[in-house]
């Protein structure tokens, strides 16, 4: 085993290969799963180091953690300090105040909306559904995109042509417009929206990118070796190709989350979704109760819009930082 120094940029997976050198030497007698686990741990640590180097990624991560805590705080507050009758985000009503929407005060840090509900409570409770939506869409996209990309690259020819044409079709479709028309016809709930968004993303641009990456993996010698050793197609795709695609897939998960939260926001703002509470819905309520251009009552719009912007930005920032981990050519040396 050697550890060569060259002044050329290292390829993706270099952490794994250098880790192999040191690990394999002294752990040949360990069971395979242990070795795999420690390899993964080493490469994760290495990736974290690179990720942590860029303040961009850390800022994004920080914002995400903030919102995660924000979401967690809601049930705690509801159980302890906030009486349900007043602070419930959907059906609460504060009868003690003369008029709604009420300005921010000690009792209602971000004021109340037009029908007497606490705005902060609405923000907090929606956070978890935003995360859930993002996660659902991301998982669907990544599963679809990776599988299709790998299969497309592996089998080529007819399979490839079909999927790439399909991707063309999806890329050609205007997502927001389609969702709006769809929303006008069928009111989607959060889960359905997540799946639809996931499918739209999964068959589209992500697949093309992952397929290109899969093509570069296909020409690597170990694929040929696996084939000669008698591995069947399924095995090769899922044991060799897909794991090497995962970093890229994970990267695109971040961007999918951004898109999903944004799309949900837009649809909610136009009242086209069948959900009880979301950040976009807060703005919709403001509009339907006629306070949209009432700038004195800033708390009705500003926090919700800011929340959407921040969370979308956060995931995008994390995605950018991950880009440097996954794509060594973008790294600073």
């Amino acid at each position, binding site marked *: 085993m050697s550890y060569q120094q060259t002044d050329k940029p290292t390829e993706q997976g270099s952490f794994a290969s250098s880790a192999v050198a040191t690990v394999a030497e002294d752990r040949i007698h360990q069971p395979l799963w242990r070795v795999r686990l420690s390899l993964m741990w080493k490469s994760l640590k290495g990736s974290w180091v690179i990720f942590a180097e860029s303040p961009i990624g850390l800022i994004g991560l920080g914002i995400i953690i903030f919102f995660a805590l924000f979401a967690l705080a809601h049930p705690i507050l509801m159980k302890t300090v906030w009486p349900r009758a007043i602070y419930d985000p959907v059906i609460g009503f504060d009868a003690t105040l003369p008029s709604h929407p009420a300005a921010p005060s000690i009792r209602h840090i971000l004021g109340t909306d037009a029908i007497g509900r606490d705005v902060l409570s609405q923000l907090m409770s929606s956070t978890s559904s935003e995360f859930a939506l993002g996660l659902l869409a991301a998982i669907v996209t990544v599963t679809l995109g990776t599988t299709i990309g790998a299969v497309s690259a592996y089998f080529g020819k007819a399979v490839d042509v079909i999927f790439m044409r399909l991707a063309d079709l999806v890329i*050609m479709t205007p997502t927001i417009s389609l969702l709006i028309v*769809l*929303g006008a016809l069928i009111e989607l709930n959060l889960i359905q929206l997540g799946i639809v968004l996931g499918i739209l993303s999964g068959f589209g641009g992500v697949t093309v990118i992952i397929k290109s990456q899969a093509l570069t993996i296909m020409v690597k010698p170990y694929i040929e070796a696996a084939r000669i050793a008698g591995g069947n197609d399924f095995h090769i795709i899922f044991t060799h190709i897909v794991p090497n695609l995962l970093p890229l897939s994970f990267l695109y998960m971040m961007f999918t989350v951004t898109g999903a939260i944004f799309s949900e926001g837009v649809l909610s703002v136009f009242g*086209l979704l069948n959900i009880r509470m979301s950040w976009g819905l807060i703005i919709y309520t403001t509009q339907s109760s006629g306070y949209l*251009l009432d700038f004195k009552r800033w708390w009705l719009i500003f926090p919700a819009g800011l929340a959407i912007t921040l969370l979308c*930005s956060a995931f995008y920032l994390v995605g950018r930082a991950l880009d440097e981990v996954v794509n060594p050519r973008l790294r600073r040396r």
Partner: protein
Amino acid sequence: MTRYLGGRLFQMLITFLLFQTLVFFLLHAQPGDITQQMLGDPDIPPEAREILRKQLGLDKPLPVQYLTYIGNFWQGNLGVSWSEYPKPVTSIILERMPRTLVLFFSANVVAFTVGFLLGRVLAWRRGSLIEYPVTVASVILYTVFTPWFALVLIWVFAFKLKLFPIGKFITVRLWRGGPFGANEVFGRMITLTAVLLVAVFLLFFLTRKLSVLDRRRIQIPGFLILLVVYLGYWALSPMGKYALDIAWHMILPIATITLVAFGGTMLLTRNSMLETLREDYILTARAKGLPEKVVRDKHAARNALLPVVTSLIYTLAFSIDGGVITETYYSWPGMGLTLLSAATSNDIPLAIGALTFTGVMALVAHMLADVVYAFLDPRIRY
């Protein structure tokens, strides 16, 4: 080259047909009949429904309907709008489309140009102090929640500073009883500005091979003359103040779109440049002793340009998408607003027509992108 483009066109048409099929099935996705929505009013007798169904061809079997639909499309017939009965969908689109295009075209071209020029400088200076703040700012602009952003801009510039109007196309008071219609003036604005742009482009194009000194001597006065002529026309024409009114209403929406697109372009340019900078020919260019600016612009940026230009073309194709949000918040009566209101008021023909039209734009954009790419990259000429 033509063979390649011909093949691509064919592929695109197939894709478009699939798109239309998708749209068609969207139309028939919901349970029940569309006429139910339109004639949900119990006062209308069921016979009227039957007549309408016959008119819309809904009594025929599905495959026949599908073929009629496709056939109609290629004849330029997209049906009649329900919310603006009996205006045909096509004429509504033709009326509203230019408004959206003007907005998005001007905003995106400006945003991409400035974004690219700045982005390439930023990428060149990797690790400088301004890199992180600018990147974060670009990300925020790119991912900002557009409805909210529009409202913020309205609040600051229209409400607080009272510099611009709070939305809409025109100040109705000004036009009422006046000699001109909004579309007339707007049309004139578009044609004249297009003429101006073509003239400026020709000016720069025809003089590009001259030496630097001669070039400046012709280009600068030439440009100024053209500008004076343009503005002079508006100043002297009776349409002038109406045109100004429309222009004044355009500024905030354009600013919103420009800022968001600017963020995206900066990020894309930066990424593209970073990839390009790792190429061997950049090292060669530096080894040749060329000045930094030349290496950056002539060698790196020129190659980094390709994905950025492609992105610009696709962004233009999805103007309607973007328009839905921006136009709604500024009450700008363009195609996006039309799509949204059609969808929410269940004007199915108009909604589907608008959606199909976006597909057409995407198709055109694809083809255009292919041509431009072949033009910019000698490696893919066939």
